[in-house]
């Protein structure tokens, strides 16, 4: 095993051990001490208001394939879809998910179906609630616009891999007066979303969504693990810089 692989394995091992440790701690002493992220507070209100007003919630999952590293943000989007669908599926206008990639589209349909099953309303499920609106970045953005414009969407949650074309989607939301909560793994999209959405999620905030939406113990444990591992990475960077400065490493 090479030195790099050994280092990566140690990092992954430490991450895993901490994840289990925090899960055990939180199971014993459940507590909610997550820092406030306004976007999640607004989302909770938006879901309630959409159900009351008979409006639709739209979850845009982007076009990151699950076979790729970009897929992680799409998977986070699916967790959000599951939580939102469970809360709003009984609405007159059930939530709709759009995606720009085949596997993500199938998974969004599967997630919606299981959410309907969980609330014993399988008969209300329609595969059309999980749409693939386009298979290239611009066609995805263009295909998503009619959902926002024509389907009385009150809130759009963008959670997945996007590029700068995401501005077209947020602009459509702005024009119909609907709320936008958005996060992406792509830096370019994050910059665009910071400017164009009401509630942007920056960096790892997107990956903490499961913990804020009460998706389970492991989501809370992973937020804590990420916090600890961030300090480990910072210490590693500082140590590396110091060792380079004194000439131990080249």
């Amino acid at each position, binding site marked *: 095993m090479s030195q790099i692989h050994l280092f990566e394995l140690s990092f992954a091992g430490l*991450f*895993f051990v901490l994840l289990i440790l925090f899960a055990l701690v939180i199971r014993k002493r459940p507590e909610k001490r997550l820092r406030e992220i306004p976007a999640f507070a607004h989302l909770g209100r938006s879901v309630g208001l959409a159900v009351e007003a008979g409006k639709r919630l739209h979850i845009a999952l982007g076009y990151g394939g699950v076979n790729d590293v970009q897929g992680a943000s799409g998977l*986070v989007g699916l967790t959000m879809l599951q939580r939102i669908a469970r809360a709003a599926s009984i609405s007159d206008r059930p939530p709709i998910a759009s995606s720009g990639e085949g596997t993500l589209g199938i998974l969004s349909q599967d997630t919606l179906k299981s959410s309907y099953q969980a609330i014993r309303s399988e008969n209300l499920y329609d595969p059309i609630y999980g749409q*693939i609106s386009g*298979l290239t970045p611009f066609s995805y953005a263009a295909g998503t616009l009619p959902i926002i414009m024509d389907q009385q969407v009150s809130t759009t949650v963008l959670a997945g891999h996007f590029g700068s074309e995401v*501005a077209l989607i947020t602009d459509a939301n*702005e024009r119909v007066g609907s709320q936008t909560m958005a996060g992406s793994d792509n830096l370019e999209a994050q910059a665009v979303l910071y*400017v164009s959405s009401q509630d942007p999620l920056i960096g790892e905030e997107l990956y903490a969504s499961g913990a804020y939406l009460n998706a389970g113990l492991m989501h809370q444990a992973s*937020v804590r693990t990420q916090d600890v591992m961030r300090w480990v990475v910072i210490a590693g960077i500082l140590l590396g810089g110091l060792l380079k400065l004194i000439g131990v490493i080249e």
Partner: protein
Amino acid sequence: MSRLRTSLSVAIVISVGLIVLGGYFLDIPMLNTLQIVFLRWAALLGAVALIVGVFNLFNVHLRKINTGQKGSPYSLILLIALIATVLIVGFLGPTSFWSMWIFNYIHVPIESSLMAVLAVVMAFAGARLLGRRFNAFSIIFILTALFVLAGSISLSFVDFPVLAELRDWIDRVPTTAGARGILLGVALGTVATGFRLLMGADRPYGG
């Protein structure tokens, strides 16, 4: 039955995930072979999912036409274009004259037009930012964007080398530092998502 199906799905995901991850870290020939086989299957499934995606797109727009929803004429145009493209590219090949004609004279101009619209939309969004969130970060964001834009413009009658140098410094130091910080957060989030999947805590496959 449903519970059994979920348990089976979770078992498959965990075992395949562990084999692929193990094949990356450990140098065991059998594990490496299995890893390659699974990754090939994943690529194959991805391609099948793409075809399913096209059918889904077709179905959504066909239903829109059948139910006479708003914008159904556009859906009809989309379906005609989709069928025509599949037939032309399928029968004549992806590099034939007509396939390239579709690409060069329909696809590229449409995407270029959307790109042009995007530039205007982003300028408007920038202008709206201060009205929506008037705080120090928004002001820094807008000022930096304007400054970098000004530093990138080449005008023959104006020459400010300091401006270009400062723009390069912004690009090299604060932008790179901020981007790396955000990317580290994203990477940690990605690792956490991967572990939750491997442990069966996240089940986006109907569990």
